[in-house]
């Protein structure tokens, strides 16, 4: 697999593994992310995993003390050496996080559109969406927003032409072959098919985001009564 490292400004390097959404490529991204988090080298500040790339933020000043060459060149060599070691750990088996979703038309405001678009019944949409264990590829776009995939081909739907000005927190949507949950109220163009009563993001929690890259997620259909019950707690 070809890996390309390039500068992302003068304080970060971008490790690019390609331009495809693929679980194996994403696992390489997360392995490097993990290896950096555990590395004793104290000049790395943080790294940010995406589908097929990882941004590595470093302390340019501190690194200058380790090298006579450019800090970026030093970081690039350091990362290439880490990648060459190829001790990329096997993916730890993660338990599946079940996320209850109420697929009622009150919350799933695009269910009817989706049903018409794909010539499916709403029940078929629900069973297709709940049948798969999704991978959280990355968190981005907004705090705690998990990009998950891939949905069944029969559910893949383009984004709305005109994004909504406000999508309520907890809304579950589909964009292309991805599925995701809006953690906070936000403008957005994903096709909304339901809503979870869980709080995906809470600033009062020690770890504010419920989901992290690499997690496994399965949606569980609940009715409105169950939604209210969980919501009330």
């Amino acid at each position: 697999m070809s890996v390309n490292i390039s500068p992302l400004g003068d304080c970060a390097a971008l490790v690019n593994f390609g331009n495809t959404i693929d679980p194996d490529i994403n696992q390489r991204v997360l392995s490097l992310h993990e290896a950096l988090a555990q590395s004793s080298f104290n000049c790395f500040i943080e790294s940010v995993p995406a589908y097929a790339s990882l941004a590595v933020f470093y302390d340019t000043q501190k690194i200058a003390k380790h090298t006579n060459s450019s800090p970026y060149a030093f970081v690039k060599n350091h990362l290439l050496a880490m990648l060459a070691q190829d001790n990329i750990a096997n993916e730890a088996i993660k338990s599946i996080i079940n996320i209850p979703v109420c697929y009622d038309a009150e919350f799933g405001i695009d269910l009817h559109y989706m049903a018409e678009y794909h010539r499916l019944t709403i029940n078929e949409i629900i069973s297709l969406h709940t049948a798969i264990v999704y991978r959280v590829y990355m968190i981005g776009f907004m705090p705690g927003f998990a990009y998950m995939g891939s949905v069944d081909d029969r559910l893949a739907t383009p984004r709305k032409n005109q994004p909504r000005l406000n999508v309520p927190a907890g809304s579950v949507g589909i964009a292309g072959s991805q599925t995701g949950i809006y953690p906070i109220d936000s403008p957005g163009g994903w096709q909304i098919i339901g809503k979870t009563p869980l709080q995906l993001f809470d600033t009062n929690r020690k770890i504010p985001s419920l989901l992290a890259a690499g997690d496994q997620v399965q949606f569980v259909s609940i009715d409105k009564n169950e939604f209210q019950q969980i919501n009330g707690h």
Partner: protein
Amino acid sequence: MGIKIIKPGIFTTIQDLGRIGYRAVGIGPGGAMDTFAATVANYLVENDKNCPVIEMHFPAAEMVFESTALVSITGGDFGASLNEAHISPWKPFFVQEHDRLTFKNQTSGARIYLAIHGGIKADEWLKSCSTHSKLKAGGYKGRALLKADRIELNKSMSRFSINNFPNLKSIIHPVYEKPNLIRCIAGPEWNLMQKSSQSIFSGSTFSITTHSDRMGFRLKGTNLAIQTAEQLISSPVNYGCIQLLPNGQLIVLMADHQTTGGYPRIASVISADLPKLSQSAIHSNIQFEMIAQGSAEDALFSLHQTLRSIKNNCNLFYAVHRHQL
């Protein structure tokens, strides 16, 4: 001991140097737009560089102090006046109980920073006091300041002479020199841009549009084009990242940027020029100059050298006056 906000001004917020370590869960660093000015504001009143400061735009806030305090204002020049007496930016000054601070006119820059010796009390969230207004966390109740808000000070103090405080203007000046010339290095997708667009990028002028805020500066200029129609999948972005939008126009991501994005990252503003860019007001024209990675790093080292020099000057002054602090 506190500061009473009489008029809130436009988006007056508490910021520090940002929230580090949470980009992986989608929380960007935020923090002061002009980290140089925020840091210097703190050094001028003998604070740690990451002490929370008040970031203001024009029209700025009007405030009344409830006790004696050592204060500094840095960044742009908004015609600060204390009880109608002119206050120069980039040097410390004393305020007393009932003193009223106002800002008359914007003569330079786009934002200013106010620091107070001993610091202000602010909400800390994920190790930072920066205001995250979208999540309503950090700073002052997670929001911009409003009329009648009261900010508590950490320390009380008494007045002493700071008349012979060193003049640091000649040290600071180079950081904001040539305000319209913004140096860049190539971004990951620079080579995806058409050759003709590459030369337009570094050879023409772009203006900062009204659709510019703490999240990003939208620019207006000649349309630029990408060679391929291939869609990019979402990938990390950072402060200073210049993205090419589908309509051919550019956006420069600023302090409150998202952590990931899907538009081509054609270039990055060098860290040493972010203070300058963040002080560029709406409607100002800027030009980009492509430089080598090594030159960007050297410019950053020199910025840090400038900060060290300012810090040393301030510390030396206060060391002599320490018995009074």
